[in-house]
């Protein structure tokens, strides 16, 4: 019976507009969670796919409901043994049940514990609607995505500022005739290189991933790999080569790097993944199970993982969600406050969090 509504309130003065995710025009809206009376966290504003357009602008605060799947995950994370290989946790469930927000909660927790957060807000954005595809200079068969890579690097930088100077690169990387990063330089330089020279952004991302993976076992920091919509890495893409033939995700350098990151051959951290049908390509609308969304290839690649089901609201959770809306005066319709109105909302939304939010938006 651990379902409580913990109000993680942030005062307006603690929120720094610079902490917003910037650069991704399609980025899902941000959600920050601050614990009461504590220091404003350095964590990134973890992103969510909900339709609530910036709750901070509407409510002057941003709140998460503490629910069972997130609590379960937090318990597992607290008891992780960092000497063992990284455990993969997969959050799955039907659309709108709260997988992404549970991921946000976990990311916030780990950020508060000073882990290094490697967060991909939506892996589907890497496999569809990419404008500038370049052939990779590093490997002729692969393709680079400068726009996506540079926006990810920007977010990574804001999220993990303090680690960028601590972690040192263990090899020399030559970018072009004039620029190179020597061995022992801080990782921040690689990120800067990727941001300034956009053509090398994808390679910079690859370098960052490789360095983090090799150094996570050293014990200097704990690494959390959080990917939303991980089924994009093993599905199909809608990207085409110049001769209009379809591209497989293996040919994208970013996807290859991420696949290596998500495999469990490193230790010193954890991997939390979310499946998502909403942005996925060529998958039926009702599919939500790991086998259906990942396909054979993806399932085999992720194989020993801990599945965590995220389901619709229980009656108490529904009640507390409605109470939250009423306290913030979000439900303005006079009938919404009555018992009849609440029963009707329960019926119309079937206790699905996403559907309830869309209903309450216009009531």
């Amino acid at each position, binding site marked *: 019976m651990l379902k409580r509504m913990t109000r993680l309130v942030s005062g307006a003065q603690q929120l720094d507009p610079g902490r917003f995710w910037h650069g991704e025009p399609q980025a899902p809206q941000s959600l920050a969670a601050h614990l009461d009376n504590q220091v404003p966290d350095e964590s990134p504003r973890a992103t969510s796919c909900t339709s609530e*357009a910036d709750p901070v*602008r*509407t*409510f*002057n605060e941003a709140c998460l409901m503490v629910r069972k799947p997130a609590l379960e995950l937090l318990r597992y994370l607290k008891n992780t043994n960092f000497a063992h290989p990284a455990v993969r946790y997969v959050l799955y469930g039907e659309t709108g049940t709260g997988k992404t927000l549970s991921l946000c909660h976990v990311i916030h927790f780990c950020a508060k514990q000073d882990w290094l957060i490697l967060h991909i807000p939506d892996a589907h954005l890497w496999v569809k609607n990419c404008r500038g595809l370049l052939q990779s200079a590093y490997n002729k068969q692969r393709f680079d995505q400068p726009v996506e890579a540079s926006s990810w690097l920007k977010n990574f930088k804001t999220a993990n500022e303090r680690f960028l100077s601590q972690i040192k690169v263990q090899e020399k990387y030559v970018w072009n005739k004039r620029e190179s990063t020597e061995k022992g330089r801080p990782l921040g330089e690689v990120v800067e290189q990727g941001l300034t020279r956009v053509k090398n952004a994808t390679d910079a991302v690859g370098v960052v991933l490789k360095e983090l993976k090799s150094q996570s076992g050293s014990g200097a920091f704990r690494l959390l790999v959080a990917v939303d919509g991980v089924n994009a890495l093993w599905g199909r893409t809608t990207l085409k080569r110049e001769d209009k033939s379809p591209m497989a995700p293996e040919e994208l350098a970013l996807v290859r790097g991420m696949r290596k990151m998500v495999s469990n051959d490193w230790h010193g951290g954890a991997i939390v993944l979310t499946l998502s049908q909403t942005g996925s390509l060529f998958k039926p609308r009702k599919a939500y199970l790991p086998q259906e969304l990942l396909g054979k290839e993806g399932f085999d690649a992720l194989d020993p993982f801990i599945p965590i089901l995220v389901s619709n609201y229980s009656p108490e959770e529904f009640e507390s969600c409605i109470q939250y809306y009423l306290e913030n*005066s979000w439900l*303005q*319709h*006079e*009938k*919404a406050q*009555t018992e*009849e*109105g609440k029963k*009707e909302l329960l019926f119309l939304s079937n206790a699905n969090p996403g559907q309830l939010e869309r209903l309450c*938006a*216009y*009531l």
Partner: protein
Amino acid sequence: MAAPAVKVARGWSVLALNLRSAVPRFPGLTQVRWSRYGPEYRDPQIDKEYYRKALAELTEEEKYEQELRKTQLIKAAPAAKTSSVFEDPVISKFTNMMMKGGNKVLARSLMTQTLEAVKRKQFEKYRAASAEEQATIERNPYTIFHQALKNCEPVIGLVPILRGGHFYQVPVPLPDRRRRFLAMKWMITECREKKHRRMLMPEKLSHELLEAFHNQGPVIKKKHDMHKMAEANRALAHYRWW
């Protein structure tokens, strides 16, 4: 208005099944816009409370009504009319007027997005305002919608009347339903025509509703223009015979 409520057409009359109505028939005239239901069909009772009353609480008349309904023929309820507590006839009528080509799904989603947009704008204003101003800011999109449409209703209208071979615009008091119709029609036309090509309907409509709520904006101006024209044609008021 003295004109009959039902349009009639000349021509042969089709004596199909159930072709009866309460309108007096004229020889050689057929109804064009009719209901397929005969006069003995009663309207459906949608209200949930009507059926929840215990048998003991009913008065004699209501008992008689209920018994009668068991034997009488009842029309089918339209698909858009529900027994939901959130249903609003004004919103339904407005949604129907916004609908194009029978695309009720789109019209309804535009309506809900408009209400959401109005709500969000008001919440932003509320957040930015001081404590005294917060008491005056109205955040309920439904009250804003109703008040805005009420503010847009003209009191007096113009009707073309034929006298001596010319049509004169005669000022005439409008019935309630005509006023509501005109308010909604003006609002929708304004939002459809006077917006930028890339601006979406909910955004424009929410903006216009908020302006009308504060008695400003182009729709209110149109209402005032109508009033001024009626005032200008005051001399022709004698041409009205009803």
